[in-house]
């Protein structure tokens, strides 16, 4: 129904769009919410609209070589759920207890991951985590600047830095590169090398 699948390349490209089509289809069915006599019409219409949207608004490929690992993703999500609760409780306690006298800091955390997708995910998760909000993302250097809330001394700073790194490890393991970013050395001030590589990968 979508493009022809005569050449294997076209076929694979169509396959890459499949998750998005399925997601849009589910969304359509959920929002219509009808399973009665109009059910078949909604189903068919949803598939049609989903394919039309994906074909007419193509998105750039996400990340070459991203390997989702279901088990690790599950663990990441479990962490996320507990962290949401912890984050809410921490901030609420700070607001009640200290309020005006809360001390904060902005810390610099160099990242090891170097693709757009992973940096975005790490930034999202860090913002959901207790006590931290990403203030600035330096894409070129691969550095996150994180505003952290209850910071009283150097030990808190070190602890938060370690937490951001832990988040990065979890994310990288969940959807990381096939050649595992955690094997590589951290590259603090460095290079556009790996970035270039990730850009051209898909061609």
């Amino acid at each position, binding site marked *: 129904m979508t493009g022809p699948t005569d050449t294997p390349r076209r076929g694979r490209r169509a396959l890459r769009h499949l998750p998005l089509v399925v997601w849009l289809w589910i969304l359509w069915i959920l929002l219509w919410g009808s399973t009665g006599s109009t059910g078949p019409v909604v189903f068919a219409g949803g598939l049609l609209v989903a394919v039309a949207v994906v074909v007419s608004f193509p998105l750039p490929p996400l990340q070459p070589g991203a390997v989702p690992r279901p088990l690790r993703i599950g663990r990441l999500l479990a962490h996320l759920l507990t962290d949401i609760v912890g984050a809410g409780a921490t901030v609420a306690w700070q*607001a009640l207890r200290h309020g*005006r006298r809360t001390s*904060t800091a902005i810390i610099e955390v160099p990242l090891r991951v170097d693709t757009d997708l992973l940096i975005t995910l790490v930034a999202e998760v860090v913002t959901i985590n207790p006590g931290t909000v990403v203030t600035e993302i330096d894409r070129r250097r691969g550095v996150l600047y994180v505003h952290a809330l209850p910071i009283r001394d150097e030990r808190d700073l070190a602890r938060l830095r370690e937490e951001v790194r832990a988040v990065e490890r979890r994310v990288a393991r969940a959807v990381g590169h096939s050649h595992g970013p955690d094997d590589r050395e951290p590259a603090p001030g460095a290079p556009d090398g790996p970035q270039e590589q990730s850009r051209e990968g898909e061609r």
Partner: protein
Amino acid sequence: MTVVRDVVTAVLLPAGAVFCLLGALGLHRFPDTVSRLHAAAKAQTLGVLLVLVGAAAQMSPRHAPVLLLVALFQLFTVPITSQIIARTAYRTHGLDRDRLLRDELGDRLARDGTPVDAGDGAGRDDDAER
């Protein structure tokens, strides 16, 4: 079955409402924009998520997924909004920088020769001027 659902709702709804209230309190008690952002992004989001899940537990299986969808969208969009607001706040002096224990972003910008505060208060984002 309905008992379980009722208990879930009875726990989650008030808990969510209380977290919303605490988030709103944080909006008042924290000293600067970025700190207030913490209250908005965390306590508030947790509160709304709890209320939405608690409400979804009472709904028919046909409509409950829609509420869970709203919760999911909140979860994905709130960090993005927060990051953009935090970034803009830093650049428009929405942050009391004397209060920071450490400001490594400021250090970096100073090293790059592009500090934010060129002429104190020039870029300050108050509505008064507009």
